[in-house]
């Protein structure tokens, strides 16, 4: 029996026999995609609004109907006076208020109609988005009015043209599917690998392996190969979920995406090996990967918070994180359908990282174990 095959066989048995590992390997990706998909979304759906409409005429009611039937807004409250605005916002029940003037319908004819859109800017991103959506709907409403009647001359025609490239509907999935991918692959390739190697050290079986005729490189490969295979499987699951459940496109080359995933996994694996050479036991390995790899991947790579709005030092640190470079690659291939002619820089950086960390951890592995 081949030495290496015997070793890999053992590694698979460890994985398949440990329910916790299995859960992390197969439950986590699905859970994260669905969770991020349905919870952490930038899309506006059924945002609660309040309407203060003293005129209550056909036009104002028509406009409110148009707003609420768009699917973006839900009428939470009809206010009767301007004093009610403050409490409605304070209780957090509404995200935006629409304030009509008196005699909306007649004023519309003369072009004196003023409409106030008040957003809850304690959540600035949402507020801006909501106001923009509402603006667009109001503009649409005006155009319809103009077309219906012939009074084009005195209507203030504000046509808000907002067009979002690549993600016209601003679908959250387009952002988080690549993000979850960077996270999951880092989790499985780096964290799980570092834990499984640290486990051998902790239990003392690593000594026995090192005294055996297996070469250190065989031990590392044997420990990591199963996880490499499993993270690849995970990547496939995440991409499929993104496409099937959240309607992500797959505009570019699947083959290129697979190759880039492998590259990213190599970087993650070498980071995992590096951590395991430092950590004495599983707990240390877990904390080191959670704090040193998972947190930055989640927070600094631009997955959840835009990198542009970070202070410069954090942006610089973000550059050292593999996910920062992998994220645009996934987006580029899946959404924009571009290839290496555009993504060569990101790919090169990842390749450099792979070589650097792999070299570092190999040297460490020899010295420390």
């Amino acid at each position, binding site marked *: *029996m*081949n*030495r290496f*095959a*015997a*070793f890999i*066989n*053992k590694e698979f*048995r*460890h994985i398949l*026999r*440990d329910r916790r590992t299995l859960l992390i390997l197969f439950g986590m990706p699905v859970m994260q995609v669905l969770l991020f998909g349905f919870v952490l979304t930038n899309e506006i759906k059924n945002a609660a609004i309040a309407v203060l409409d003293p005129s209550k005429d056909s036009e104002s009611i028509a406009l409110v109907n148009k707003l609420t039937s768009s699917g973006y807004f839900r009428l939470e409250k009809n206010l009767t006076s301007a004093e009610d605005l403050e409490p409605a916002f304070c209780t957090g029940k509404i995200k935006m208020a629409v304030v009509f003037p008196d005699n909306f319908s007649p004023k519309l004819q003369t072009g004196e109609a003023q409409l106030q859109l008040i957003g809850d800017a304690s959540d600035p991103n949402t507020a801006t988005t909501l106001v923009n959506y509402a603006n667009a709907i109001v503009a649409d409403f005006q155009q319809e009015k103009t077309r219906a009647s012939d009074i084009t001359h005195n209507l203030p025609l504000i046509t808000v043209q907002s067009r979002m490239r690549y993600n016209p509907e601003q679908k959250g999935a387009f952002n988080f599917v690549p993000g979850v991918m960077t996270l999951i692959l880092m989790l499985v390739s780096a964290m799980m690998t570092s834990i499984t190697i640290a486990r051998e050290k902790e*239990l*003392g*079986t690593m*000594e*026995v*392996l*090192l*005294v*055996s*005729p*297996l*070469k250190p490189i065989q031990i590392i490969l044997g420990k990591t190969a199963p996880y490499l295979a499993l993270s690849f499987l995970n990547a496939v699951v995440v991409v499929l979920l993104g496409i099937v459940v959240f309607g992500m496109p797959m505009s570019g080359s699947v083959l290129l995406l697979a190759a880039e995933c492998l590259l990213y996994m190599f970087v993650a694996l070498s980071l995992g090996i590096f951590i395991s050479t430092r950590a004495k036991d599983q707990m240390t390995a877990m904390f080191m990967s959670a704090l040193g790899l998972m947190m930055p991947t989640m927070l600094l790579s631009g997955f959840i918070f835009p990198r542009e709005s970070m202070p410069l030092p954090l942006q610089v640190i973000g550059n050292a994180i593999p996910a920062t470079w992998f994220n645009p690659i996934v987006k580029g291939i899946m959404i924009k359908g571009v290839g290496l002619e555009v993504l060569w820089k990101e790919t090169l950086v990842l390749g450099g990282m792979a070589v650097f960390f792999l070299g570092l951890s190999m040297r460490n592995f020899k010295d420390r174990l």
Partner: protein
Amino acid sequence: MTNIISTHQLTRTFGKFIAVNAITFEVREGEIFGFLGANGAGKTTALKILTGLLSPSSGSATVAGFDVKKQPEQIKRRIGYMSQKFSLYEDLTVRENIRLYGGIYGLKMSEIKSKTAILLEKLQITEEADKLVGSLPLGWKQKLAFSVALLHEPKIVFLDEPTSGVDPLTRRQFWELIYEAAANGVTLMVTTHYMDEAEYCDRVSIMVSGKIEALDTPRAMKASFGAEDMDEVFRKLARGV
């Protein structure tokens, strides 16, 4: 008798610290050699050099006829090793552990099968063959670990505190396995904390601060130190009492 291990002025330093200080000794083929010393005396470092895990800073050593510096791979194939920590995988079954180590040492599948049957029979655990090792009592695990270390028929087996944390009865039974292996011509190099176990060895060496301060049969050592038992010898040497 030929020497299966011989070292000459073997030294290993870590920075300024001299862990192993110019030790020269021989282990004869087929003997049970007790390798004693207090914690930090340099035993573990010396063992690591002899098992090919560490290279010496200076001096030389051969194990089973191969140079530790130049031919560690050759040595690794011919030695067995059992550490103080339990060296089998608790989440694998008895049979899977045997198959794994057989595989790592390059045994053929047919060899592994026949050896597994013999081993299970000998340890009388055929019925437990497909149970997880973690579910076995500690004594059985130790015996199994030792038998697995012998699976590839090594010329020499290094046992690094194999009986620490095991009850006296199990220790006694474990030593019977060691005797049996020695009777079959296997050389055993054993480190231990238990001085009564030192008495079971053919010869013992006692390391103090990186040097071998005494090397002889337990009987001769007791005589020359005027001591009742090995414990007294050890205390006189290692702790300077």
